[in-house]
């Protein structure tokens, strides 16, 4: 009996300090163009987006050419966007297949490397000369989500927003477009609109999804969107705002639904285990 209690206590205390290994990992999040993309312009810089903690220290980016040779190249990292950019040293061949191995990067908050990714894409016949066509955001829906967070081991409250988007097209292919979603109104915007999402344009008909902490999301909230192609040309559409009035969810953290973190849960288990131990000892006639 005593061994069971001790094991329970140890397990709880261990849980109190453990954090998921995925927490803060400097993983590659997405690439533009994505794996399997077609019609990639022959003059296109190629982009990979990494998690916020990632740092780039010159790790090689491996580009497999259509003739089977491999080039180890160095990219350029934009820390603010988490974007690693590879500009091929010379224009790519038209209508050819390339394979790109994006590197595993180290992070500022973890010792190991994160995830990289291998992507294969096919070029189009020409360069990208025209800007993308896009009419911006169309509708907005919101909801309240509560999920346990890998890093904090507690339930985090967020408001999630689904921003529906107009059709987009580009002579470099739709797969080569990056969505820039900005929050244009909200309680925590001190100066101008804030970029809240940067990454591949979702599939046609699929809304862009973003979650915001409550202090930046309760009240009158608006978003606007535009897209940019691989060569850096941007669309219009940023003038179209979609707005919604959100409300504070009914957070009553009563006895039965308090969002306990592991530390508090561990404390509760510990007290319960000690009480059980005392009762067991009294019944057994043992003294400390």
């Amino acid at each position, binding site marked *: 009996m005593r061994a069971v209690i001790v094991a329970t206590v140890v397990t709880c205390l261990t849980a109190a300090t453990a954090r998921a290994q995925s927490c*803060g990992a400097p993983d590659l999040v997405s690439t533009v163009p994505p794996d399997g993309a077609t019609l990639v312009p022959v003059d296109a810089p190629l982009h990979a987006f990494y998690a916020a903690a990632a740092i780039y220290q010159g790790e090689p980016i491996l580009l497999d050419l259509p003739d089977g040779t491999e080039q180890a190249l160095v990219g350029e990292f934009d820390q603010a966007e988490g974007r690693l950019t590879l500009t091929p040293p010379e224009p790519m061949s038209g209508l050819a297949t390339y394979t790109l191995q994006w590197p595993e990067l180290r992070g500022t908050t973890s010792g190991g490397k994160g995830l990289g990714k291998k992507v294969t894409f096919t070029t189009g016949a020409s360069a990208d000369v025209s800007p993308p066509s896009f009419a911006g955001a169309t509708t907005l829906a919101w909801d309240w989500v509560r999920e346990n967070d890998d*890093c904090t081991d507690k339930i985090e409250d967020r408001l999630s927003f689904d921003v529906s988007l107009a059709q987009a097209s580009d002579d470099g292919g739709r797969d080569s477009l990056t969505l820039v979603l*900005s929050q244009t109104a909200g309680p925590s915007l001190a100066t101008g609109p*804030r970029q809240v999402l940067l990454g591949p344009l979702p599939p046609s008909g699929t809304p862009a999804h973003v979650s915001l902490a409550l202090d930046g999301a309760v009240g009158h909230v608006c978003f606007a969107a535009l897209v940019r192609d691989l060569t850096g040309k941007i669309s219009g559409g940023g003038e179209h705002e979609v707005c919604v009035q959100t409300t504070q969810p009914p957070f009553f953290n009563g006895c039965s639904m308090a969002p306990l973190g592991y530390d508090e849960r561990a404390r509760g288990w510990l007290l319960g285990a000690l009480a059980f131990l005392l009762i067991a000892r009294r019944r057994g006639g043992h003294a400390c």
Partner: protein
Amino acid sequence: MDTTSDSAHDLAPDLGFDLAADVAPDVPSPSDAPPPGTVPGCVPTAETCNSLDDDCDGVVDNDVAPIPCPGGGYRYCVAGRMSDCPTRCAVCVPGGQRVCFISYCSYWGLQACASDGQSWGYCVEQRPVPSACSSVASNKKHSPETEQCCIDNGFCCLDEFDLNGNGDKTEMLGRCGDLLCAQ
């Protein structure tokens, strides 16, 4: 009407293009001027980010070039205003940890940044207290001295006691470079 067809701009050198040529002051040349009568009564001026159709081509805020930011990324014209420069996170770098101060037991704790970088978690007591500050925490307990010891010994510390006197008790002081969002 296609409202987007002529509203594009190249971005910056790291995207492989000549930004300087594209972010030059946006003064319409005679060849850029809209056809007469496009917007009756409109007097064309340079398009600026203001939710108005300054150049009278029937589209607001087109031809407003992105502005490169010193720390990376760009400012874009959205909803009539230029967006702020992007930051790599909203509040803190996901998974980062800072020292916080509790009012009991060890008087020393750790606080983790959420996986989306938008909030901090609970302040969880840490034992043992790092040796450099164990005696201070033991003697001075929950006090400015304990926070000062945290800062002096190279930790990233919650400024709970407002040691820099700016009235902000939610900021971080000390060695916090890896946890800051702005670059």
